[in-house]
């Protein structure tokens, strides 16, 4: 790959007080592409994202290399990180409403985040926020601007987070379950927005998702994680040919429209799955 945006080698993360690491020896690099991360709940997907943004105070992070463009993420000071985070790389967090300040209006929070990175008057910031809420298909942006986080629906919360991240024109976006609370029609519109960012602005996008249809059709490559490790890396179009038994089990567990209503196949988890990756 020429000129990766992000290059991670042998990343491990152990939370303070935990006996086992949450992430073990994860390596991947990312170009101007869409990389999907799927995997078992609790397998360390969000932890990888938070480690890249250095949002893990209570954990020990080790790696052979963690490079984002010209920034050495392993050795960057917190001051350097403040310039990078939110501006050059952003993350759409898994619990959108929790990551918003509960006592400030949603629109004001987005506007404030914009103004910490870009010089703009309050009125300019407000106009920009309304424009972005429109872009993420929020029906009534003027009303939603005024709402507090507990007053917006789950899907609105997700889109407010996406709007916040779009404002600063980052090079790397890590989206943790960005569309799980959206109905399918809105989901397709939001995916199109993210797609345009990759193709027109040349950003790198990491999509953490449980939605196999989404990663199969929307991403370029997919990483499959199990128990803190990458067990398989493959082209998204090859997802249905995944080899690892965890990946096979995952594909089999997906209910289908018009399928039988009998019990869904479940995984018999096997200790040998803790072994490092199969490449295909």
């Amino acid at each position: 790959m020429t000129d990766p945006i992000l290059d991670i080698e042998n990343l491990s993360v152990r939370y303070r007080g935990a006996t086992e690491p949450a992430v073990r020896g994860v390596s991947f690099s990312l170009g101007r592409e869409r990389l999907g991360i799927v995997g078992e709940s609790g397998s360390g997907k969000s932890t990888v994202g938070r480690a890249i943004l250095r949002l893990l105070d209570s954990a020990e992070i080790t790696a052979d290399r963690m490079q984002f463009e010209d920034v050495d993420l392993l050795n960057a000071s917190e001051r350097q990180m403040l310039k990078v985070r939110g501006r050059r790389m952003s993350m759409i967090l898994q619990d959108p409403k929790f990551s918003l300040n509960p006592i400030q209006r949603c629109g004001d929070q987005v506007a404030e985040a914009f103004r910490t990175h870009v010089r703009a008057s309050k009125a300019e910031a407000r106009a920009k926020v309304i424009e972005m809420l429109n872009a993420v298909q929020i029906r009534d942006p003027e009303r939603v601007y005024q709402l507090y986080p507990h007053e917006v629906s789950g899907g609105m919360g997700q889109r407010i987070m996406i709007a916040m991240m779009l404002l600063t024109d980052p090079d790397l976006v890590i989206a943790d379950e960005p569309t799980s609370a959206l109905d399918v029609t809105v989901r397709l519109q939001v995916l199109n927005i993210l797609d345009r960012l990759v193709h027109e602005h040349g950003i790198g996008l990491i999509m953490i998702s449980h939605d196999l249809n989404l990663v199969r059709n929307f991403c370029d490559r997919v990483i499959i994680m199990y128990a803190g490790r990458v067990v398989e890396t493959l082209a998204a179009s090859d997802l249905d040919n995944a080899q690892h038994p965890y990946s096979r089990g995952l594909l089999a567990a997906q209910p289908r429209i018009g399928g039988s209503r009998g019990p869904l196949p479940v995984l018999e988890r096997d200790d040998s799955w803790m072994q490092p990756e199969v490449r295909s």
Partner: protein
Amino acid sequence: MKPIAVKDLCMSFGAVQVLHDVSFDVAAGECFGLVGESGSGKSTVLRCMSLLQGQWTGEVSIGGVRVRDMPLNDRCRMVQMVFQDPYGSLHPRHSVATVLSEPLKIHGLDRANERMAQAMIDVGLPVDFLDRFPHQLSGGQRQRVAIARALILEPDVVLLDEPTSALDVSVQAEILNLLSRLRTDKGFTYIMVSHDLSVVDHMCERFAVMQSGRIVEILPREAIPTNAARDPYARELIGASLAYERAV
């Protein structure tokens, strides 16, 4: 087993009306789906039914008794809810053990430790996670704690707001199988909000499609694969879901 009846439910936040005459019936032991546009009022319907939201008009009854007339304790034994947003619904400084033991204590149920351990096993979590706090759990693990909390009281009716959208499909399969098994064994009645029509098709006999605070159509599950909806929005939603399953 208890049937549910919702009649002419209306609800406003200030000047904005978010529910308009929502009516539907759910048979005893049925799993009824609620799907539709983001922001259309699905969570609000569940919040009204469980009286987390009080200022509504209309009528909601369970097993023939109006929820407004039920004493609080009876209502909690009868109706439990799994929230869409598991982080917000778990107290940040309460351990999982506290979350699960509190309802048992309030309702004076015996064998608390045994019930707590079984609830953890049912949702596929290690029993030693009882000592953890919400911030020490992944998104899907938190959601499973929320499901365990709702099921531990063995209620008659469980209101499920996107119970599996934060879970990988292998854990989703385990939870859906668990919910189906409990329905057969204990006669639970469910109302389930979901954006995933393959989950609705798998779990529900019938479902309502919502848009802008209204139910636009109630359909049997058989209407999904053939897109037999008549309402234009319901047709669009089902059509998009069918296309989504084939390609994004």
